[in-house]
Structures are given as C-alpha cells and as structure tokens.
C-alpha cells in the first residue's frame, strides 16, 4: 500500500511524542520549588492536614515512584484530584471543555471560511485593490493582541448591537421556568458570538495571510501557465489547480494552528469571562492547582500532537507524492 511506511512513521512519532509530552509534563511540575500542597491555604490547612494531603497525592514517595504512579493513573485516565477542591480533575474539565469547544469551533470556522476566501481572492487578484484591502485587513487583525481586540469589541460593539459581553448564558434563563430549546440555543449563540468573533478575526488574519501566500506560490508554478495555455479560464485555474494545490500547505498550517487555538483562546475567554478551558487555566494558575494545571497542559499538548498527526495524514491523503 502506498505510504504505509509514512503512516506508520507519523503515528509512531505521535505516540512517542505523547509519551515524551507526558513525561515532560511530569518533570515540569516537579522542577518547581515546592509541591502542589505547599501553597495550599485554607481554613483547614493545618500542618497535619497538609501532610495527609501529601500522602494522598503520593508526594512523599520518591520521584521515580511518583512517575510510575502518574503513568499508571494516566493509563486509567485518572488525572488525579484537584488540590483545592479535592474533586477529580477529570470531572472539573468536562464542563469547561463543553463550553469552550463550540465557541472555538465557531471562531475557527469563521476564520477558515473568510480567511480562505480573502486569501484566494487576494492572491488571484494580486496587486489590485481587492488584494491590498484583503492583505492589509488581514495583517491588521493578525497584528492585534487578541485580548485588546476583545476589549475593543466589548467597548465599541457589544452595547451598540446589544450583545452580551460576558458569560455563557443569561443567568436566569430557564431557571425558574422552562425555556424552549430554541431560546436556550439562541441565548447560547448570543453569548458565544463576540468571543468567537474575536478569536475568528485574529485567526482570520493569520489564515488569510497563509492562504494568500500559499496561493501565490502555487500560482507561480509552471502548471498554472500550462493550464492557462490549455485555455482554462482564470476562475477554473484558481479552483482546479490553484486551490487544489494550495490546499496542501493550507491544510497543514490550519491543522497545526488548530492545535494551538485552545491555548490561544485563553485570553479571549478571560476577557469575555467565558467559562471554558482558558478561564480554568488562569484560575488553576492562581490557585497553584498543580494536578489541574498538569491535566490542562497535557490536554493541550495532546491536542497539538493530534492535529499535527492529522495534518500529516491529510497531507498524505491529498498529496500523491508522499510515499515515505
């Protein structure tokens, strides 16, 4: 089979990377002075209590034993317990992930659709007003700090068009009286709109630039000249040669960036008080909640690895030249 070796190699690399990421994750959080318990501060946090907590977390064992325990727990998808809340980290993650994903997906979708559109048009109509307009808007959004763009949207847009600027739903909707699914859905969408737009705009800039330069590169290839010679109309060339070939680097870069988006959504969620994974991260840092942080970090790393692998496999799927 074509490129079985390629697939095996990429998957093997991904698995190895997962393992290294897991180990790095372990090491990183133990390279710090003090452990998860040291910073604990609560009503009941007596010396004895902290000692008991340490024992619970296995922190009194040697590093090596801790590492083995950590791996064993991970093998059972046990991410440990959050230190301050003492609840399983796995449970703490569920709600934020469920909140984050639709918002991120919406923003990414926006970015991919508009980024591709603008990038293609800009490359095709290179040097025209459309190109310059598209290029500089994209550059502009690309250059904006995400959190600032979010603030600007809150300040100048949210009120003007009557969209909520924080939270994930209207507090009392459906609370003391039933609300229809549609009402809940549209309320959710309204809350999602601005954060997703912020994320989408910044990514849009990124994607439009990527697509434009990939398209430009492709349009400089000789087969495009051949296609023109064959009498293909401009749009047909863009569609069947330009886009088809530019798709390769675009898919790769987009898939790669997807892995990093969740990390990138931290400030968006922070600005919009959107109770997702990003906000959870900020909170976990503040509380020095090591197990939770470790889990988030692992999750994010895994998502990058996953999307990396996806990019590799997509590349393989779409480029017949890839064999090894």
């Amino acid at each position, binding site marked *: 089979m074509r490129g079985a070796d390629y697939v095996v190699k990429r998957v093997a690399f991904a698995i190895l990377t997962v393992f290294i990421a897991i180990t790095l994750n372990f090491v990183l959080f133990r390279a710090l002075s003090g452990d998860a318990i040291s910073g604990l501060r609560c009503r009941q946090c007596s010396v004895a209590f902290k000692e008991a907590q340490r024992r619970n977390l296995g922190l009194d064992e040697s590093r090596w034993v801790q590492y083995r325990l950590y791996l064993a727990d991970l093998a059972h998808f046990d991410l440990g317990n959050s230190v301050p809340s003492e609840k399983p980290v796995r449970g703490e993650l569920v709600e934020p992930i469920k909140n984050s994903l639709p918002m991120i997906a919406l923003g990414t979708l926006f970015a991919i659709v508009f980024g591709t559109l603008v990038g293609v048009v800009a490359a*095709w109509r290179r040097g025209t007003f459309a190109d310059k307009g598209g290029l500089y808007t994209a550059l*502009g959004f690309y250059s904006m700090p995400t*959190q600032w763009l979010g603030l600007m949207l809150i300040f100048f847009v949210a009120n003007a068009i009557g969209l909520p600027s924080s939270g994930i739903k209207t507090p009392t909707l459906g609370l003391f009286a039933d609300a229809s699914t549609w009402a809940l859905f549209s309320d959710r969408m309204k809350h999602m709109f601005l954060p997703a737009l912020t994320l989408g705009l910044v990514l849009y800039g990124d994607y439009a630039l990527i697509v434009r330069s990939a398209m430009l590169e492709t*349009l400089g290839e000789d087969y495009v000249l051949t296609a023109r010679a064959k009498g293909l109309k401009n749009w047909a060339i863009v569609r069947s040669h330009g886009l088809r070939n530019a798709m390769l680097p675009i898919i790769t870069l987009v898939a790669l960036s997807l892995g990093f988006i969740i990390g990138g959504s*931290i400030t968006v969620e922070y600005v919009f008080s959107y109770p997702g994974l990003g906000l959870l991260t*900020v909170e976990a840092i503040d509380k020095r909640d090591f197990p939770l942080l470790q889990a988030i970090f692992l999750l994010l790393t895994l*998502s*990058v*690895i996953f999307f990396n692998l996806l990019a590799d496999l997509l590349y393989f799927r779409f480029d017949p030249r890839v064999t090894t």
Partner: protein
Amino acid sequence: MSLIEPLQAADEDGLAHGIAKTSRPGFVRSTVFGSPAAMAGLGIIVFFVVVAIFAPWLEPYDPTAKTGPVYAPPSGAHWLGTDDGGGDMLSLLIAGSRVSLGVGFLAALVAMLIGGTVGVLSGYFGGTTDTVLMRFTDYMLVIPDIPLMIIAAALFGRNLKNIVIIIGIIYWTSTARLIRAQVKSVRERVYVKRAQALGAGNRRLVVKHVLPQVAPLLIANTVLMIALAIFAETFITFLGLGDPSTISWGRLIENAFTGEATINNAWWAIVPPGVCVTIVILACTMVGQSVEDGLNPRLRVGHLSVKRFRVRTPAGPEASK
C-alpha cells in the same frame, strides 16, 4: 567592452525560471528599500525605537505618579487623558514602549541565538546531530506555546528577565527549523562543496559561506520574532503574570481591563496601548515579510493575473522603434 556587459538581457527569457534562490550582497537592503510597505514598517520601528530610547525626556509627566484625576478624559494638560491611577496616559505609553520593545528585541535575540545555533548545527552537520536536535525541536514544537508561557511565567516568578527568557525559549524552535532548512540547502550548494573539496574546514565553511547566506533569513525571522515576542509579552502581562514593577503596553491593556476602563467609559485608556502594539507588530511583519518574500522568488512570478498584457497600436510611438 562588450565582454563585461552584464547579462541583464538574460532576465528577459528568464521569466519562466525566476531568479536563483541565493541572496546577493546588499540583498536585504535592496529588498527593504525596494518595498514601500517594508520602508513604512522600518520607519515605524525606527520611530518607536527612538521614542523608547528617549522616553525619559519625552514623557510630559512622571508616568508612575498620580498627576491628574482618575480617568480624566483627554485635555490640554493630558493629551491622552489619565488612567485608573490618575497617571498620564501619554507618559505611560511612552514609558511602555521601552519595556515592550526591549522585551521584544531581547526575546527575539534569545530565540535567534538558540534557534540560529541549533539550526546551523543541525543543518550543517546533518546525520546524528541533526536527528537528535530536530527530534528535540519537534517535541518542543508540539508544546502549546501560550499555555507553557503562562505556566512558566506563573511558576518561575514574574520579572522581565524571566519573561524574556521564557519567550525566547519558547519561540526558538521555528527559527531553528527555518534556519536548518536553509542551511541544509546552502550546504548542498556547489560552492560550499567546492570549498570543502578545497580542504576548507567546518569553521570557514560556516562562517564564510553558510552564515552570510542564511543571514537575511535570520534577520527576517528575527524581525518577525520581535513581533511575536511583543505579542507574547502583552499576553503574559494581560493575564496578570507580567513584571509588576514595569510599565509596558501589555500592562496598560491589563490596567484598562482590570481598572474597569470600560465601566468608566475611558476609551483613551483602552485604545492607545493596543494601537501601539498593533502598529509595531504590523511594522515588524511588513519588514520581515518583505525580506522573506524577496528570498522566495516563487512569489514574484504570477502566472495568473487579472491584469493582462497590453496590445499596442502599431502606430504607437514605441512600436516604430
């Protein structure tokens, strides 16, 4: 004399094969000076660098002092109003340029040094060195940069030095990959092989042949890295993990957020720092991009264009040549 006529004419049929992918002396200068966008970008960067250098003399007020009422709107006394502590926004903005640009430049330098070294070693020596270094780089690449930055900043103590190092350490990987690829291709160039066949040592090959060739790319990459680093600083600072004892643009954005500038309708506290960051990043991107584009001749040839060649009327003045 005709013997030394430079072969400019060769470029004419050279339409299809573009220009050799090597950088000639003065290449960076000519690409930057040749592109209006890059020139504008360079101008902006120079402007802000000058502001940053002369900041203490340019600030109308002591940026750390309370020199007006809290959230005073722009006026003759305070051109850009005051912030939540009654500090003069203009002075804060000027003072902030120092840290923001400083962090940007230094972190980019760190990234460039690490990335450049790894890239050159890896690309030049190849083999096991390459494998080991690139594997390591691959692993570093999959670490989500922003969360790592946040965690590191939160856990290792929050001062400028740490932030610079963290940003530098996180961003070196892409530089390393880029430089490695370039070094690898330069390494395969015939003139390097020739020098090697002459008996030239590694040091000579790297210093005399390889480095000058990758220098433009390294410069372009560093300029882009400055933008990334400035970005990262605002990011870290915004999450309250920046160095509290310094004023940076990121800090001003954070202040606007935590200082309830929106509630107080103080647009003057929100807009300017972000605009400064955006402009500087835009400038760096334009400069870096133009050098990179110059290095990639593919982008200069477009076989598809909405513009068409022109048909001159035979009676045209030129046609009678």
